């Protein structure tokens, strides 16, 4: 009843092409942005901001990066964590070695370096596809970790290979509080998500999707394979690289190379599978599910214990969390193999008819 587009007429092409064609969606998005930028920092306490929402945003960005490559361009990759690592370590080096480097500049340097690595390891995609390509990107994962561990220059010869992010300062304002870091992350993520959304609606995005759906057909209709695939790798790695830099600077503060192991690559891959392959919104939903849900389960088991007044062995609780989380993943994949984003879409379609289903 509320969510209906009847009576909204479009009289120009621009109106027809806008991202959110329905007025209610625009209002909802505006409300969401106001909540994210104004309400959340005002009411959220430090725990929520620094331990829950900031990592959620950072992982959303990484998932978004992988979604561009895997969801839109159809190239399966297991190197996400490696690209994040490149971003984090190169942003650190940019800050360390280039005098007067602005922090956003360092993020961009980190992203560009990751993009360069992504292009190099994307080269095999010109010849191989699918699972075989995943194995080739796996090589990237191992090579980058090896390089970070072995090349002392990258970690400024730290004995343990650990880097400590420098202080974030923009125009003389120090970003020390978790609220500041949250806002910085949010700004970066919003801008990049908007850019990704628009990119996917452009010619480049359509070329990506053509390659994904059938690359032979795509090349027949004149889409350059090499340029398109490598561009997909570059853009995707850039996103992952910036996410890695944010991970180091706005979230953990100190990073060891082991933070970027294969486990993380898989986690990001699961995020897009659960959230929705080939969907911007899906990246956010998937990241929310994978990063926040285990913590929610953990807190919920505490409340449950408190309310029921029973004491459970901590090991049992910890293990059952893993079991519940795993079974929920399977449940979601069976109920909706296209991910949470698809569920959301169905909800919206139903809402348009509600309350008169016929």
């Amino acid at each position: 009843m509320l969510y209906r587009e009847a009576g909204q007429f479009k009289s120009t092409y621009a109106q027809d092409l806008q991202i959110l064609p329905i007025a209610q969606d625009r209002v909802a998005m505006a409300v969401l942005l106001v909540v994210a930028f104004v309400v959340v920092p005002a009411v959220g306490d430090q725990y929520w901001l620094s331990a829950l929402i900031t990592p959620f945003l950072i992982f959303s960005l990484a998932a978004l990066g992988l979604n561009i490559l895997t969801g839109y361009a159809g190239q399966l990759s297991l190197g996400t964590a490696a690209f994040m690592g490149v971003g984090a370590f190169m942003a650190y080096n940019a800050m360390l070695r280039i005098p007067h480097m602005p922090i956003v500049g360092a993020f961009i340097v980190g992203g560009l370096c990751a993009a360069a690595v992504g292009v190099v390891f994307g080269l095999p995609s010109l010849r191989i596809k699918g699972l075989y390509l995943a194995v080739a990107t796996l090589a990237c994962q191992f090579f980058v970790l090896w390089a970070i561990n072995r090349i002392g220059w990258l970690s400024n010869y730290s004995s343990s290979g650990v880097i400590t992010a420098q202080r974030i300062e923009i125009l003389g304002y120090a970003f020390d509080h978790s609220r500041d870091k949250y806002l910085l992350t949010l700004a970066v993520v919003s801008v990049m998500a908007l850019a990704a959304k628009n990119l996917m609606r452009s010619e480049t995005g359509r070329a990506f999707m053509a390659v994904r759906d059938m690359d032979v057909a795509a090349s027949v209709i004149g889409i350059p394979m090499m340029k398109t695939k490598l561009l997909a790798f570059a853009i995707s790695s850039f996103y992952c690289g910036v996410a890695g830099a944010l991970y180091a600077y706005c979230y953990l503060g100190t990073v060891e190379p082991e933070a970027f192991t294969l486990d993380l690559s898989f986690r990001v891959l699961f995020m897009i599978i659960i959230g929705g392959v080939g969907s911007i919104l899906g990246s956010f939903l998937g990241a929310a599910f994978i990063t926040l849900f285990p913590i929610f389960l953990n807190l919920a088991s505490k409340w449950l214990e408190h309310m029921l007044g029973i004491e459970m062995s901590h090991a049992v609780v910890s293990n059952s969390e893993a079991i519940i989380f795993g079974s929920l993943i399977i449940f979601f994949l069976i109920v909706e193999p296209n991910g949470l984003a698809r569920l959301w879409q169905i909800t919206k379609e139903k809402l348009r008819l509600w309350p008169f289903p016929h």
Partner: protein
Amino acid sequence: MKRTLALVGAVAAFAFAGAAVAQKEQFVPANFYWVGPYAPGGSGFGGGIIDYMAMINERDGGINGVKLTWEKCETEYNNARGVECYERVKKKGPTGATVIHPLSTGITYSLIEKATADKIPLISMGYGRTSAADGRVFPYVFPLITTYWSQATVIIKFIGQKAGGMDKLKGKKIAFVYHDSAYGKEPIPVLTDMAKQYGYELIPLAVPHPGNEQQAQWLQIRQAKPDNVILWGWGVMNPTAIKAAAKIGYPREKIVGAWWSGAEEDVLPAGSAAKGYISAGFNLPGSDFPVMRDIKKFVYDKGKGEFEDKSRFGSIYHTRGVVAGIVTTEAIRNAQAKFGKGKPITGEQMRWGIENLNIDDKRLKELGAVGLMPPLKVSCLDHEGSGLVKFQQWDGAKWKTISDWMEPDRKLVRTKIEEDAAQYAKEKNITPRDCAKDSM
């Protein structure tokens, strides 16, 4: 006037009865891990510290009447979860988190800056960032008892002694099999420096996480035929290494493990292959220490206690956790003595309490922990406090102590600590404290 005040006080006390009761509590977070490949270490250590605090509550009614409270948070030995747990617990209790034992070198690194900003001390007992022993640069971080670099020098000394003197090390080959992480890489600079000093050849062999695949490394050992192997492993990597050594016929008596490679959980899965294996340690196992008997009497005999499997009582990880409990409660006691007995202390006061901690032989005797841990004296300059290490050998059924407390090469370690701390201070624009002036 006085009566009115008393009356108002009584009313207030009545109104805030809940709060007033809570005021007599000291909150110590238990951020450890009970699941995953490193769970034996996490649950053992965590069990020890909680058991000790429970015993203090039962036996003494807390510390000067202030009850100790705690809450478990699962970190999974994962940095991100560790940070989440830290943020979750830091404001709990009447005075916030008193102190954090991260029990992971990675989590310690991630928390150094956050905890310093929040004024919550970190105790990384036998792990973490070695150069944090320079208390001038790291006021809130305490790698207590002994650090990786101290341990590395003691292990080389031990190998030298076995060879019949440090000069005998010349020309010898020592392989260093390590967990490829911040933890495993930490001692390499010290081992390299000592290689130059004593003329042995160091063969570093990295084992990737989690360490259940080591054939390539042990094949290299078979080719290089080193005189000794230093095993710097963690979790499943340790028994795998011992089994691999047995497979190629490398004598286990020549393998010296670090203290995170020297618990019952590390040798039992290797079975008979582990017999003769030597490891370092900064605490001894056993359930006969008076303090352990008290834990049994006041906690386990009442049907409480952290371990369902009673055979883990008195194991290395368990007593290591008890040592952590002793250090924590003694520091709280110390801080109370200065800032007010019978009152919960803040993290800032706790920092003073740890920095001025002095657990000498006399105090160890009172605590019933003689021999369980070395004496400990912390100062503003030295956040390590002891540096002593003992060696133990697995006889197939239990760990047998085979050395006295051994001194590290303090000069070498201290120089490297100050170098590294100075570099950190420069990167972070920290002006080191002046220890002569700084009393608070």
